[in-house]
């Protein structure tokens, strides 16, 4: 095996310009694959990071997202009374009644208005979302017309910087703090006091209540307790599962697009590899004849040429990964179909995705190399040796 793999490797180097072109063709496909998948992963990541396993979110039965849900004010103390809800240092239950509405603000990049989610939160919201960290300023004070803004929203929309005044719902609100949340979707949001948001937007109820559980395993008993209470027509869901579901529509859309584009592109790249390998086989007919005369079996010849093609493709795959890597961490935005607003997220390239890209390139190499390799093995020895 050593001899023959050495032979194939060397012949690849001899034909370096052809090999390089083929590898580059594959590299472009792998780069597109990784970049588009990085969008899908980043989008999903931003939403999934929003959910914690320690938390449960309660929505109206049958509601698929916060925007179409409703929780009545008197239901809040009933939820808070459950023993599965954790208590803060002050002994108060960690539950945050919330209201999400959409406001329209001009984008920094082109000045066009875009939808920004505005979340009215209860005073305990910051204790429940423990990934939240303030990078500038401070928490909003309940009862004051103050808002906190996610880091991703600050750069994308006009007038959201610390200390500035924002006008919506016939009132002026002061930005008193900017927070990060481990790239979660909260970073695209604006937060204010829920008790001020309700009258400002003429709402008379909350949309959801998020609670911190005493322990992630307490979820089942909490769910059972809520289900048996006739006064609560609500359905608790683990916060992480809820946000995973929220990413499904747009995530699937991006993934379908990525698959469609890379599938078509990869056919072209496979044909490129096929051309190269056919040429390689034709060029080395005599050498193949010699190898066969020396006693190398047909199977060995097939594997050798297949391996050459796969190796070439993997080189391309590695180049593709390198080309795609710089987009990691770049932030972009897309519309979240379920909340009807813009969600900022970062391209996310994981080791798994890179590995996927490499496997994909190897498959392209194998697909392109198979037919030429079989052809190489089928060449009759006598004729091959006679060729000049």
């Amino acid at each position, binding site marked *: 095996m050593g001899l023959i793999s050495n032979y194939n490797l060397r012949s690849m180097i001899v034909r370096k310009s052809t090999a390089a072109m083929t590898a580059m063709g594959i590299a472009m496909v792998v780069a597109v694959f990784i970049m588009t998948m990085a969008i899908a992963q980043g989008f999903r990541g931003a939403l999934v990071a929003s959910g914690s396993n320690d938390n449960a979110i309660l929505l*109206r039965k049958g509601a698929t997202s916060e925007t179409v849900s409703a929780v009545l004010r008197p239901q809040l103390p009933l939820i808070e009374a459950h023993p599965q809800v954790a208590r803060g240092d002050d002994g108060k239950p960690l539950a945050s009644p919330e209201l999400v509405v959409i406001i329209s603000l001009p984008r920094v990049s082109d000045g066009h208005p875009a939808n920004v989610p505005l979340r009215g939160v209860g005073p305990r919201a910051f204790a429940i979302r423990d990934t939240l960290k303030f990078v500038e300023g401070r928490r909003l004070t309940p009862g004051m017309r103050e808002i906190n803004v996610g880091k991703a929203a600050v750069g994308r929309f006009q007038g959201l910087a610390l200390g500035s005044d924002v006008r*919506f*719902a016939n009132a002026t609100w002061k930005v008193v703090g900017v927070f990060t949340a481990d790239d979660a979707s909260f970073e695209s949001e604006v937060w204010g006091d829920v008790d001020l948001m309700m009258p400002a937007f003429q709402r008379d109820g909350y949309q959801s209540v998020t609670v911190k559980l005493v322990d992630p395993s307490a979820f089942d008993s909490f769910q059972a307790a809520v289900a048996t209470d006739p006064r609560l027509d609500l359905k608790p869901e683990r916060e992480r599962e809820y946000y995973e579901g929220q990413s499904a529509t747009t995530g699937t859309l991006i993934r379908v697009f990525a698959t469609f584009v890379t599938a*078509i592109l990869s056919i072209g790249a496979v044909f490129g590899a096929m*051309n190269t390998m056919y040429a390689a086989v034709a060029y080395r007919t005599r050498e193949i004849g010699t190898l066969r005369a020396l006693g190398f079996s047909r199977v060995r010849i097939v594997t050798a040429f297949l391996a050459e093609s796969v190796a070439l493709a993997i080189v391309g795959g590695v180049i593709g990964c390198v080309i795609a890597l710089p987009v990691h961490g770049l932030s972009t935005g897309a519309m979240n179909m379920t909340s009807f607003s813009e969600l900022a997220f970062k391209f996310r390239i994981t080791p798994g995705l890179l590995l996927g890209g490499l496997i994909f390139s190897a498959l392209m190499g194998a697909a392109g190399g198979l037919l030429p390799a079989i052809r190489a093995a089928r060449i009759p020895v006598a004729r091959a040796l006679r060729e000049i």
Partner: protein
Amino acid sequence: MKFIGLIFKSARRSKRRTALTMISVALAVFLFAALRSVLDGFAAVSAASSAQRLVTIRSTSMIFSMPTSHTEAIRSTAGVTDVTWANWFGGIYKDPKNFFGQFAVDPESYLRMYPEVILTPEEKEAFLADRTGCIVGDGLAKKYGWQLGDRVVLQPGIPVYGSLDYPFTIRGIYKAGSSAVDNQSMLFHWKYADERSSPQGQVGWVVTRVADPEQATQVIAAIDQRFANSPYETKTETEQAFSAQFASMLGNLNLLLGSVALAVVLSTLFVAGNTMAMSVRERTTEIAVMRTLGFRALTIFLLVVGEGLLVAVVGGAMGAALARVVVNAEFLGLAGGFIPLFGVNNWNVVVGIGLSVLIGVLAAVIPATMASRLRIVDALRRVA
């Protein structure tokens, strides 16, 4: 011209290789034309928007409604000739995955405002007469196999509309007269939804026709001024500006699709360039013989470029033709809601073929230069 035969001959030299390259170029052009048509679809919506129509929404955001009294106030604004209104219903047809636009509209004024919604006189009459009637776009009807007279039941998705199901009867299947309206939506009587809503008397947005597009700016200012500092402030825009917003909310489509298209072209360039280089390398001796016979370097150069062009353009034409047939809204049954109708048009085909010309020339330039600069003595000495 006399060399055309020679070009054909060299392209046929390795039929398999030529075919593979052609298909690669065809796929690239197919993809390019398809991506281009999506962007054009968005552009067409805003191009087809009427300059005479204005859309008024709540200044906070579209999701908030305003009282019906706004429509009368807008009607009395100077320069306004007609007013209609609509609500987004957001209902669920069997499964939340079946997403399409459902609008509660004031039927008479809405059809007057949008002559692009084309119905036969009988359908129109039947729709206006039936309070629980609805009309659906022909694309949507095809998607779900709906016929005139069919019953369609929507489950309300927004709490405002209560929790009971809404049964409808299809009274008309409309055609879209221009890209300003899509054929993937359902329209029904605003009153039907309103009587079950809480609170009642709410409209989502108001569409206004102005007598003179030149006055649009003044009318917009007058409307918004009228509601300033009220609990229901408004924001009025031309229909064009309004529809452009939806495209921009989907993210930076131009950049995303543009960079994908660039990668497509680059990867095809590598494939085609490689093929041409191979083809030239194989013919080293042949080219040297031709040079000896007196063919000029320029002729050799043009021959190779011609071969590249031939392969690429044939491939490109195949890809563009395929895209023209496969990528159209009716064939795919996509679109609806916020995604406009799109399909590959003749212009996309022309651009696609132009792209294949570019690929052919670029891919052949380096091999052609190599071939024309060949040193005859060395080449003849070489045993390929």
